[in-house]
């Protein structure tokens, strides 16, 4: 319940924060929302000599559209994401995801950047960002670099971020017209990590066929899992019930969850399948609504 002692720093600028990280390297941790880090420290499952609180640095919380992307500041709170009209309209997958992270109180503090940077495959955003083919912008002492999401999750609790870098932005390519997404999470109760969860982002073509598919799974391995075979299978096909079932089957096969109180391996894998199917159906419904809306506009 009580963390071990550490030094606390509240830099006012990104430069200060980066300097502190460079100074203390492995003995420093970034404090964003703190809703993953502080619980760890309180249970003394992790420790650090220096907490670098980026909570005072302006300009890290935003949700904007720019160029062909949606840009989300790394310190944007989950609650903001959940309430954002822009996100609900353009990226319903992300609105779904934000709404099921932990509980409403935690979401008032938890940040998207923190959810990704923690490197926990049980967190919800990693799979969503995989499905959205997002990019992570990391800012370090030598400037910013963009990391494609497929290169971001390296291992259990390990990301591609260097010790001296801060996740400052997430960029998501603007979904084309006729797109839809959904996140389906099975949890034992509100506030739990996923027993299994599936993130789906779908784009349809003019004839109703799938032209792009992003399918990823939460808590199905040491890192979030891209169901690449399921994605490839769907592209070019009409999203019939059979196609959905087969894509879901392939997604389930891509899952390699570990057994725990939430379920044995077989159950979790099957739930990855069932939830992928449900997420696909909802994503398609949303894409079809977008289709109808687009067609209505054309006329």
């Amino acid at each position, binding site marked *: *319940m*009580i*963390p*071990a*002692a*550490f*030094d*606390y720093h*509240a830099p006012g600028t990104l430069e200060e924060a980066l300097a502190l990280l460079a100074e203390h390297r492995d003995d420093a941790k970034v*404090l964003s929302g*703190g*809703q993953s880090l*502080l*619980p760890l*420290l*309180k*249970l003394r499952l992790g420790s650090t000599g220096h*907490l670098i*609180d980026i*909570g005072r640095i302006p300009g890290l919380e935003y949700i904007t559209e720019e160029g062909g992307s949606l840009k989300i500041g790394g310190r944007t709170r989950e*609650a903001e994401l959940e309430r954002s009209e822009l996100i609900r309209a353009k990226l319903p997958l992300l609105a779904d995801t934000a709404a099921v992270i*932990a*509980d*409403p*109180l*935690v979401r*008032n*503090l938890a940040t998207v950047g923190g959810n990704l940077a923690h490197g926990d495959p049980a967190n919800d955003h990693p799979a969503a960002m995989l499905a959205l083919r997002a990019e992570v912008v990391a800012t370090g002492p030598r400037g910013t670099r963009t990391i494609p999401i497929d290169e971001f999750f390296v291992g259990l609790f390990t990301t591609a971020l260097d010790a001296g870098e801060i996740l400052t932005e997430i960029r998501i390519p603007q979904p084309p017209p006729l797109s839809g997404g959904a996140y389906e999470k099975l949890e034992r109760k*509100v*506030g739990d990590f996923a027993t299994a969860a599936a993130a789906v982002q779908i784009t349809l073509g003019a004839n109703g066929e799938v032209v792009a598919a992003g399918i990823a799974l939460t808590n199905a391995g040491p890192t979030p899992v891209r169901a690449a075979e399921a994605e490839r299978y769907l592209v070019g096909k009409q999203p019939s019930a059979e196609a959905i079932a087969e894509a879901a089957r392939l997604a389930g096969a891509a899952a390699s969850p570990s057994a725990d109180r939430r379920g044995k391996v077989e159950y979790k894998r099957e739930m990855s399948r069932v939830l992928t199917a449900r997420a696909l159906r909802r994503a398609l419904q949303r894409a079809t609504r977008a289709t109808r809306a687009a067609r209505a506009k054309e006329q």
Partner: protein
Amino acid sequence: MAKHRIRVKVQGTEREAEVESRLLLVHFLREVLGLTGTHIGCDTTHCGACTVLLDGQPVKSCTVLAVQADGREVLTVEGLERDGKLHPIQDGFWQEHGLQCGFCTPGMLITGYALLQRNANPSEAEIRQAISGNLCRCTGYVNIVKAVQHAAAAVNAGKQQRPTTAA
């Protein structure tokens, strides 16, 4: 380890203290400021007994450092009553038997208060969702939902009674 001087506005009053970096906000409130209305019920950020408003948002104060609250505003259960008058959320809990042992109640009150700030007429489903980060063992939640609905009705009635400015 260095200590930090922090200034936190609690219930509108500035409070100042020197604290360890690791001091949790809930302990700052309870032990340093003596505001024991906010409670501790777990060690894994689940139960919500420690809920307070931080810059107007309900948060779990066991998972915030006191130093993070420096320069910010906190509202605890003790701040709901103004000039001896209970806030409708408090009265709602009393009228509808929304509490039994009272231990989760401060957290529930703050969450309920915050909900009514942004949703004047929450449905049962919206109330249940809003309090899903606050655990109660005694009430089975039925009367807590009624309490918040009672408070919403009272707040709305109060708004209607407010004298309008002359046209």
